[in-house]
Each structure stands twice: as structure tokens, then as C-alpha cells.
């Protein structure tokens, strides 16, 4: 089933415009991620588990959990998105469709961006949808929870798009797991800083929410540019 789909995506006929090839790629990745064996929703389960673990570490003090809430949610989302990252290219590398994408007619940068977008929709968006439920566990009120969800919505694309560089490096080196985490985590520090800062600013002040939030959006926009180019460069350099 998967091989058939990947053949469809990479061998888009020449007459079909480029956008269609990219939409086909996104659709294919989404379908693979959501079906049996895709494992996109494991990230949400991991997110839930990490957040549930926190009270065991810091104690069931609701006031403290409220104060730490945005930080806990951000850390959980960061780790959960890191966990699923190495599947962005690894699965395609195993069944050979990555080679077809690299050799295909569509520019590799755009194909990488499409794959990252599909990965974010499949693995990042569920985290944001799960945030309100987890906010209840951490005793966050509705305004705080929506603030955290909004910053996650603005910030998690940056995590996916910079993490994609690490995923591309890992797949060309046939190494994954810990090496990927070690390479990607330092790069995600700015996103973490501004994501938590924007949530805190919205909840308790004293800063204006707009300043850290717009920097967070800027980080995402920068990662849209840098991520696909660096990932495509590393795929092109590494897969020969």
C-alpha cells in the first residue's frame, strides 16, 4: 500500500503542475502517518505522559503547577515533537521513496518543506489540540490555556522545521535517536525561551504579550527558510 502511494507521489506526470505534486506528497505523508504503523499519535500520548509525570516530580501542589504550567506544556511539546522527528525521512529512506523524491522533478527544497508541513499537521497539530485537556490537569484557567495553545501554534512549526535539518543529517548518516536529539535540542533554545516568555506574558505580565509572540513568529518564519534549504542540502550531499 505504501509503496504504491510513494510511487504516485514521486512519479507525478510531467503535465501535472508542481503544486499538485506537492499536495500529493503532503496527502501521502498524512495518510501514512495516520494509518496503522504511522505512529503520529504516539507523540500525543508521550506528551500526555510527560505532563502527567511532572506532578510526581514536583508534588501535587496546584499553585506551583499553575505557575510552572506553561513551562511544563512547552517542555512536553518540545520533547514530543523531538520524539517523532526521526521518522520524517527515515521511513522514506527505508522503503526507497526518499531516493525518488531526491531525484524527482520537484525542487527538493519544496519537497522537504511539504514533508515538514505534513509532519507538523500529523504530529504537531494534535499536540496543540491536546493542550486544553492537559491545561486542566495543571490547573490552568481558560485564558492561560488558550495563551499556551496559541504560542504552541506559532512556535511548534519552528521546532519541526529546524528539527528537520537534524532528521535529514541523521538519515544520511544512518544514525538516529540520541545523536538527533543532541544536535537539535540546542537549536530549539530560542523557540523555548520565547514560547514560554510569551505564555507567561499573556498570563501574568508584566511584559506586553506582543513582543515575545512576534519574535516567536519570526523564529518560525526564519525556520521556514533555513530548514528546507539545509535539509535539502544535507540530503543531496549525503545520499550519493
Amino acid at each position, binding site marked *: 500500500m505504501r509503496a504504491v502511494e510513494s510511487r504516485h507521489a514521486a512519479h507525478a506526470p510531467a503535465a501535472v503542475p508542481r503544486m499538485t505534486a506537492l499536495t500529493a506528497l503532503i496527502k501521502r505523508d498524512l495518510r501514512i502517518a495516520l494509518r496503522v504503523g504511522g505512529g503520529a499519535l504516539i507523540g500525543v500520548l508521550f506528551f500526555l505522559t510527560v505532563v502527567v509525570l511532572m506532578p510526581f516530580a514536583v508534588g501535587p501542589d496546584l499553585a506551583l503547577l499553575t505557575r510552572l504550567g506553561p513551562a511544563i506544556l512547552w517542555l512536553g511539546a518540545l520533547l514530543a515533537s523531538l520524539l517523532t522527528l526521526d521518522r520524517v525521512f527515515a521511513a522514506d529512506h527505508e522503503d526507497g521513496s526518499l531516493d525518488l523524491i531526491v531525484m524527482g522533478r520537484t525542487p527538493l527544497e519544496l519537497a522537504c518543506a511539504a514533508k515538514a508541513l505534513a509532519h507538523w499537521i500529523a504530529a504537531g497539530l494534535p499536540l496543540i489540540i491536546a493542550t486544553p485537556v492537559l491545561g486542566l490537569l495543571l490547573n490552568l484557567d481558560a485564558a492561560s490555556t488558550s495563551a499556551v495553545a496559541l504560542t504552541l501554534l506559532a512556535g511548534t512549526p519552528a521546532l519541526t522545521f*529546524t528539527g528537520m*535539518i537534524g532528521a535529514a*543529517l541523521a538519515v*544520511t*548518516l544512518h*544514525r538516529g535517536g540520541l*545523536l538527533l536529539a*543532541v*544536535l537539535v535540542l*540546542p*537549536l530549539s*533554545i*530560542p523557540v523555548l*525561551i*520565547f514560547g514560554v*516568555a510569551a505564555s507567561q506574558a499573556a498570563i501574568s505580565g508584566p*511584559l506586553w504579550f506582543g513582543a515575545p509572540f512576534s*519574535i516567536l513568529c519570526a*523564529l518560525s518564519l*526564519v525556520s521556514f527558510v*533555513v530548514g528546507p534549504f*539545509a535539509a535539502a*542540502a*544535507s540530503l543531496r*550531499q*549525503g545520499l550519493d
Partner: protein
Amino acid sequence: MTLIDLANPTRFMTLSARVLPWLAAATAILLAIGLYQSAVAPDDYQQGATVKIMFIHVPNAWLSMMVWGVMSLAALGTLVWRHPLADVAAKAAAPIGAAFTFLALVTGSLWGRPMWGTYWEWDARLTSVLILFLMYLGLIALWRAVEDPSRAARAAAILTLVGAINLPIIKFSVDWWNTLHQPASVLRMGGPTLDRAFLIPLLMMALAFSFLFLTLHLAAMRNEILRRRVRTLQMRQARASSSEVGSSSEVDSGSREGSASRPEFGSA
């Protein structure tokens, strides 16, 4: 002699062998002068003798960033010009840069103990240097994770360039984060109006440490080239002995001799 002439490792080896003793001597002299000047520099009226840690600390911190710049240039050399020595330069620079960064952290925390009353403060500068150190370690881990040097070189080059884009962003965000969380608890040293009595030894030490980096880097590059030659010879030997077992013929000693001066050493 342009940069492209150095693409031949043999030529690089002869040239560097000629330059290296002079560089080492210059480093020793500069370090002696710089250390003497810092030793006789007056104590600060506030910080006392601990101000002398600065003469070691500041050059290390400067070099920790400069080495990443050198590696970024080498990464461009690897990816754009495919210069055969660029990945040797990048690989040799990484541990030296990590060592400078580590020394900057250690001297910084030794200075912080009497000044701030604690070895570690989540000060913006210390924190961003710590992150730089983590990135150096990640880069070294990447170099060590892959056996094939040319494959590792290209991956490390991309990571180095991504890091070069990200380091200013990280520095900026850590500054922002720090001012948000602990306003004005940081004791700033000197500032722009540094007295000449401190400035001259500091600049001398910075020059000496830059020469130290050049010397160490050149020596490490020579070691790396020799290491790759040894690796190539060992692989040839293994191949020769396995083909001896297989067909018991066809091992010309000439090719083994020639490999030592071949331009594209280990990447074959």
C-alpha cells in the same frame, strides 16, 4: 601561493612543516610577554587580584567564537569549493574550539566565585557560552558517529553553517531571557572605558592566544592528514591481504608506495 595550491596535502604538509616551528616560537614569545604584562598589571580597586583571571578568560571567550567562524569558512570550503583540506581544517578545529570554550567557562566560574559568590550564575554570557560548548560537543559527536570521513565532513559542514546562523539568535534570546528573569543583578566588568593598564596586556594575551590557536590548528590538521593516510594504508593492506587469501596474486607494492603522496588521501 593561493589557497587552491594547498589542495595538495603533500604540498600542505611540507609548507606547514616549515611554518610550524616559527609559529610555535612566536606563540611562546607572545605568551611570555602577555603573561608577564598581566602579572605586573595593577590590581583592580574593586576586584583585587581576581581581575587577572580576565586576561585568560576574555581571549578564550573571543577564540571560542572565532573558532566557530573558522569552522564556518571551512564548511563553505567543503560544500562550495570541495577543497580537500577544508574538512580536515573543520575537523581539527572542533576539539580546539571546544577546549577554548571550556576554558572560558571554567575561568568565568572561577572569577564568579569571589565576585558573585557562586561558581555558576545563569548570567546571559555564561549561559550562551555554555550553549556554544554544547554545540561544539554535538559537532564532535557527529564527527565521531560516522566512519567515512568525507560523509561526516559534509554533514558536519551543514550543521556548522546552521549553527553559525543560529548562534546569534541564541545569543540574542539568552540575553533577552536573562534580562527578563534577573534584572540588573549582573556585575559588569570594565565596560568600554577599560584602563590602558588592563587593555594592553589583554590585547597582548588575545594576540598570543590567536597564535596559539593557529599553531594548534595547523598541528592538528597535520595529525589528521597523517591519521587519514594511516587509515588508507591500513585499508589497502587489509584489501591486499584479503585478495592474497582469495587469489594469491596481484598486489603491486608500487600502489602502496604511491598512496602516501596521493592528493585525495582518505576519501578514496
